[in-house]
């Protein structure tokens, strides 16, 4: 056994604003003619994966790209609605790289690494230029220049958007760049192909094992570097706004091979989602929080007021966000908005048949700006709401409730985005790096593309040129071992032949996570849930029923493999939530709050990243910490009053 890896963040020294430039200069370069000798496996084709695969191929590396959907264009980045931030300051309203950096560190409740965030703010401007050059049809003003809007609580207009389909347009831009490289013969894309393990040799990631979802065949792929761009773990909660196949499997498999998992308890609950309508509910739908620019959030002042909204007079409504946060009002950050919605529902003032929703009312905006204006801003969102609920939001207020949406935690990475497993890089939502304990709106798209277009293509050389990488053949024992372990796992799932479906077990896990590791957490609840999750996992491995075989397309088997990993992962998420005895961003421990019910951070004891090491099947995870130091931003209590 090698010495346990230490958490060296590799953050460059010197002035923050020069750090990335200096770091890039210090990184080794690889001669263009030599790049083709290196093979890079990129897992996932969302914004991070597609942009990284395309860029690395353009640079001359040999790239293999993998996705579980039938086309790389379908990755879940496509569903992002609102926009992408960039410090262009086109509006001349006082934005700058430093302000975007500052807002992101503050919005993350001072739990992100300053240097990573600053780099993100710096490259944000390049992303917009690159996407426009690709033909991404961003919204424009009549003069032909790009339009911006204020989004998610920002006090400047720095968000670029393409109607309510920004993620789609950015992903199609990256996808088209990827398709261009496929056509040039520099990338091989494998669709309906799932990574089920990472292969390591001498402690370095040297390839992956995949399972072809059409044929069930296991395949070995060697690589000189492996990039995980596999998104977040919101579906541990079963109901989330993530696409149904989003999963933690690739990250969890890598974790078990040596990559530390950082801050798994940092989950983001998005405030503007369509409420649950019944027990058959399969997922939740988010509506862009740009809606909060014009919609006013309220509930009745009186508990149990059953009157239709139109019959509740103005003075009997509680516009609780405007009341509690006069300067930010309805535009407070996501964690604050979500927690307040939960609080009013807990008080019995929630609306709708379940009492688990609040109103988002456009009546004032429609009478002020006219229906046509509101329609031009949010038409597609209103249409989506009406399709799902059967209610017309022009005529009556929307009903919304928070839902799990994004996960800030992820595999620990250093400044180069390399995990504690050398040669394994982690990009986008799958890593933990830039959003601290709470992500700001329109920052996920920015991070995915920053990591894929600009960061990893520069930093991967530290590994490729810095380490001696022997040629490796897939007939090597390390591949055989990983493949047979994966094969055995799927065989086991098929042979349990119990009484409960995968979906039933997944729902049970989701409920447990939502009840005890959701919007509000307590020591007692987490301790209880930790016992229950171990039991549930045992039940899963004894009582799940997966029909069919492993030699053809079998969706229940795919799902079973992912749920098995969520079962293990959830225990770690709870453990992390239990150990972090403070409230910060998306992590709210009821024991740690101010008299006014706001999150109470503990900077003396918890101003650090918690990175968990897997130490074997029957061993407890080991918690490591990376101290966070703030030299350019002063730690303050976030206030949106």
């Amino acid at each position: 056994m090698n010495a346990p890896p230490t958490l060296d963040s590799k953050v460059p020294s010197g002035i923050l604003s020069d750090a990335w430039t200096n770091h890039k200069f210090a990184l080794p370069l690889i001669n263009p003619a030599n790049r083709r000798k290196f093979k890079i496996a990129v897992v996932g084709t969302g914004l991070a994966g597609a942009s990284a695969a395309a860029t690395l191929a353009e640079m001359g590396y040999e790239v293999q790209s993998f996705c579980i959907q039938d086309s790389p264009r379908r990755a879940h980045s496509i569903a992002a609605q609102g926009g992408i931030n960039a410090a262009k300051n086109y509006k001349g309203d006082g934005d700058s790289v430093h302000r975007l950096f500052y807002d992101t560190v503050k919005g993350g409740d001072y739990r992100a690494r300053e240097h990573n965030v600053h780099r993100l703010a710096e490259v944000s401007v390049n992303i917009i230029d690159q996407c426009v050059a690709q033909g991404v049809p961003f919204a424009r003003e009549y003069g032909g220049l790009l339009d911006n809007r204020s989004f998610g609580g920002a006090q400047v207009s720095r968000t670029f958007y393409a109607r309510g389909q920004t993620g789609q347009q950015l992903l199609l831009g990256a996808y088209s760049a990827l398709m261009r490289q496929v056509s040039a013969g520099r990338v091989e894309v494998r669709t309906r192909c799932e990574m089920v393990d990472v292969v390591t040799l001498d402690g370095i990631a040297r390839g992956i094992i995949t399972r072809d979802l059409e044929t069930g065949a296991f395949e070995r792929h060697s690589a000189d570097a492996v990039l995980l761009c596999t998104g977040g773990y919101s579906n541990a909660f079963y109901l989330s706004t993530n696409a149904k196949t989003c999963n933690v499997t690739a990250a969890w498999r890598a974790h078990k091979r040596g990559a530390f998992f950082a801050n798994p308890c940092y989950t983001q609950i998005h405030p503007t989602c369509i409420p649950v309508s019944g027990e058959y509910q399969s997922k939740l739908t988010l509506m862009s929080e740009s809606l909060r620019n014009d919609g006013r959030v309220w509930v009745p002042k009186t508990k149990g007021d059953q009157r239709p909204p139109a019959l509740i007079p103005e003075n009997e409504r509680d516009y609780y966000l405007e009341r509690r946060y006069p300067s930010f009002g309805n535009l407070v950050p996501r964690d604050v908005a979500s927690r307040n919605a939960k609080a009013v529902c807990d008080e019995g003032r929630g609306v709708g048949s379940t009492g688990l929703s609040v109103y988002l009312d456009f009546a004032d905006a429609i009478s002020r700006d006219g229906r046509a204006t509101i329609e031009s801003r949010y038409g597609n969102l209103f249409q989506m709401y009406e399709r799902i609920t059967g209610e017309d939001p022009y005529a009556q207020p929307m009903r919304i409730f928070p839902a799990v949406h994004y996960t800030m935690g992820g595999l620990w990475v250093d400044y180069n985005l390399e995990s504690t497993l050398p040669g394994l890089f982690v990009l986008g939502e799958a890593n933990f790096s830039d959003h601290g304990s709470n992500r700001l709106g329109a920052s996920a798209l920015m991070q995915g593309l920053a990591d894929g277009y600009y960061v990893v293509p520069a930093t991967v050389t530290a590994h490729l040129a810095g380490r001696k990488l022997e040629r490796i053949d897939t007939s090597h024992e390390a591949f055989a071992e990983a493949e047979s372990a994966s094969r055995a796992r799927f065989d086991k799932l098929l042979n349990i032949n119990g009484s409960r479906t995968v979906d039933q077990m997944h729902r049970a896990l989701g409920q447990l996570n939502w009840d005890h590791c959701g919007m509000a957490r307590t020591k007692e609840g987490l301790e209880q849930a930790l016992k229950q999750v171990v039991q549930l996992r045992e039940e899963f491995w004894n009582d799940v029923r997966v029909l069919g075989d492993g030699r053809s397309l079998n969706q229940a088997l795919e799902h079973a493999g992912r749920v098995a990993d969520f079962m293990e992962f959830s225990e770690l998420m709870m453990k992390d939530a239990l150990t972090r005895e403070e409230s910060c961003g998306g992590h709210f421990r009821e024991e740690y709050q101010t008299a006014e019910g706001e999150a109470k951070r503990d900077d003396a004891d918890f101003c650090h990243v918690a990175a968990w090491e897997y130490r074997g099947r029957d061993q407890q995870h080991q918690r490591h910490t990376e101290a966070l130091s703030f030299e350019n931003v002063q730690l303050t209590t976030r206030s949106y009053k």
Partner: protein
Amino acid sequence: MGGHSDETLTLTLNIWRQSGPDTAGEFETHSREASPAMSFLEMLDVVNENLQREGREPFAFDHDCREGICGMCSLVINGKPHGPESETTTCQLHMRSFNDGDVIWIEPFRAKAFPVLRDLIIDRSPLDRIIQAGGYVSVNTGAPQDANALPIPKQNADLAMDAAACIGCGACVAACPNAAAMLFTAAKVSQLALLPQGAPERESRALGMVEQMEAEGFGHCTNHYECMAACPKGISTDNIARMNREYLRASILSR
């Protein structure tokens, strides 16, 4: 339209069952109850849950985001790709669009170029290959000019966005009597034809993408406009006219 949300619908479902690409398929009939507030796919989830509890294999169907944007879901429902509602993907379709006692036929998108892989799942990889044949702007990641150095008239930007809204689901192909992929291909050709970024590769793009479309075995357009009626994103056939102009222009100018 169906009734209000507290009633239950009793439905007869005829669902396509096919074990693999090389086997024959057939409809399997199930009688099920559904709530009007359920989405169509949630109704199928319940069918599948019940089947599995009875020890029978679930129906395989493609789906992912379930909010109408990823383009993964498909299905021909009562003869219509994505079902009866206009500009609505299958995953956004809700059971309130049906009535108690309805008989519903559920089958895969049918086209020679889209072979069935299993049950309701088809292979749509030809669409990726059409994009590979020119559906991009050849610009490497690097340091392009400032985004605002290239003003684009709002009208053109909006039209480009209308075309770019295509989700690549393939409903246009399934709806076309000739199984043509004209609307899909035209949407991408149009988006880039409307933007100055697309101008340098205008000819090679139109020629390359149309040739690939034909090579994949898609049929020709004979102006039925069924594609536009089925498109869940309301992509207009004006784009096909634009692509035809681009193709004609490119054919004349090509060297």
